[in-house]
């Protein structure tokens, strides 16, 4: 019980400090030059890393479903449609493949 509250308080303080720290860090970075170019590229690279991280632990079914979701995303540029296609694809692959 005590451990649980320690974890909750520690995660609260640490996570908020990280979120705030990023804002302070961002304000220290120049607005032109290589650092600014890197910071502009950062969101896309982080999203790609998130997708890569979740696919590395998966197998052929996850990769196939991701490819189907990517195809739907490229054609429709639509978030709910891509989510629906990805979930339907992984469900079908796990049940019927």
């Amino acid at each position, binding site marked *: 019980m005590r*451990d*649980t*509250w*320690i*974890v*909750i308080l*520690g*995660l*609260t303080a*640490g*996570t*908020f400090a*990280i*979120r*705030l*720290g*990023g*804002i302070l*860090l*961002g*304000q220290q*970075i120049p607005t*032109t030059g290589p*650092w*600014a*170019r*890197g*910071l502009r*590229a*950062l*969101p*896309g*690279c*982080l*999203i*790609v*890393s*998130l*997708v*890569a*991280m*979740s696919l*590395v*632990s998966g197998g052929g079914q996850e990769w196939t*479903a*991701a490819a189907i*979701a*990517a195809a739907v*995303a*490229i054609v429709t540029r*639509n*978030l709910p*449609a*891509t*989510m629906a*296609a*990805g*979930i*339907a694809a*992984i469900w079908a692959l796990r049940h019927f493949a």
Partner: protein
Amino acid sequence: MALTQPADPPADAWRGAREILPIAVGVAIYALAFGVLAAQAQFSALQVGVMGASVFAGGAQIIASQQLVAGAGAVAALVAGLALNLRLLLVTASIREVYAGRPWWQIALGAHATTDESWALMLAQRAKGRPVGYWYLVGGGMCLLVVWCVATVVGVAFAHAIPDPKSLGMDFAFTAAFIAIARSLWKGRSDLLPWLVALLVVAGSIKLAGLAPSWSLILGGVAGAAFAGVTGDA
């Protein structure tokens, strides 16, 4: 700054809250799964509710709880959770102009409302040319916070009655959402090499070097951004 701030904060926040709803459905299912885990880790409903509102970082809450279930102790659980959250340093840094010039309470509120999902959705809307900003981010984040708290408490209270999200394919909801958001962030061929660097660094550092996924995620993001910073033109 290229994008003008919208003149109507409440309307912008409301739009953010409404447009994040498809992702919020995914968050709710993820939250139910976390509630089941939290019940195994001997969390009370009160503790789960407080944790959801105050930590508000699903992945870190899950990893910390898994550590507690495995008997790892409070310090190990904390370190694992915070290591995963280090990516949020890059997330808030990457949208620095959203918080610029605001009073301290708005900076604190905006920081707390910034999650992978609210951040990514705001960026995706900007990539479409919509002038969304701070209040859109806060509206989306607060909508997710309410959904996250309610669904995690429901999950811990009804842990025995919840089916495995994996059997419904719902564990794939976020991967699919981030694929859609990556598509909307694609600005052209100059993105190809940095994204490839990020992808290869994440895959290589997990598969070949055995790095923990939370560190490889940060390494991949930084590597791709550094590559773009060094090679890109003005």
